[in-house]
């Protein structure tokens, strides 16, 4: 059973600042680790995903860092914008498992 621990529960950042969200997983998986962005009343939208054979992936202002030995991965939102205000979820597949286990979510508020 995959457990994913996500922190912090919420964070407030000024426009232009950096938001950092951390996740830790328990069981080793060899597929991918995604981050989802969810706005109120909408489903989670795939934001960025990383394969465990790379340590970092960047897409625009969003960067995932992956530490396989520590079983941790994090999301960095650079130059945060008010439109980034949303709830962010990390997820991890289990070992020999098709489901995704999600973290509890982090609510990010970007103040203008």
């Amino acid at each position, binding site marked *: 059973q995959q457990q994913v621990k*996500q922190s912090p529960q919420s964070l407030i950042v000024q426009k232009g600042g950096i938001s950092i969200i951390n996740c830790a997983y328990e069981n080793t*998986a060899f*597929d*991918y680790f*995604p981050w*989802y962005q969810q706005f109120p*009343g*909408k*489903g*989670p*939208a*795939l934001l960025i*995903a990383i394969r465990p054979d790379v340590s970092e992936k960047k897409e625009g202002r969003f960067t995932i860092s992956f530490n396989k030995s520590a079983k941790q991965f994090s999301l960095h939102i650079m130059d945060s914008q008010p439109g980034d205000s949303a709830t962010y*979820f990390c*997820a991890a*597949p289990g070992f020999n*498992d*098709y*489901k*995704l*286990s*999600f*973290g*509890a*979510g982090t609510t990010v508020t970007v103040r203008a």
Partner: protein
Amino acid sequence: DAGVTQSPTHLIKTRGQQVTLRCSPKSGHDTVSWYQQALGQGPQFIFQYYEEEERQRGNFPDRFSGHQFPNYSSELNVNALLLGDSALYLCASSSGDSNQPQHFGDGTRLSIL
């Protein structure tokens, strides 16, 4: 390129009733997973369908059942509804016989009175 579509958007039922939710996967995807998301929480895996069979099931009672059709669309059925079944039900699709990033629809908001 249509994404994952779910219907209906909202639904109100009373305790003891039965409900059917529908999902059409993203074009090119053949695998459908269903998740339940309670308010303020992350999605919880219900089950996954691949090749019209339930491939894996989460910790949900038998009141939750599903089906996948030859065109890869899927239904989630919930019988004997309880107040605690009130949640956002999400469908996610992916492709291939291996773990690939799952893409979610906007869900069906189910309210039980």
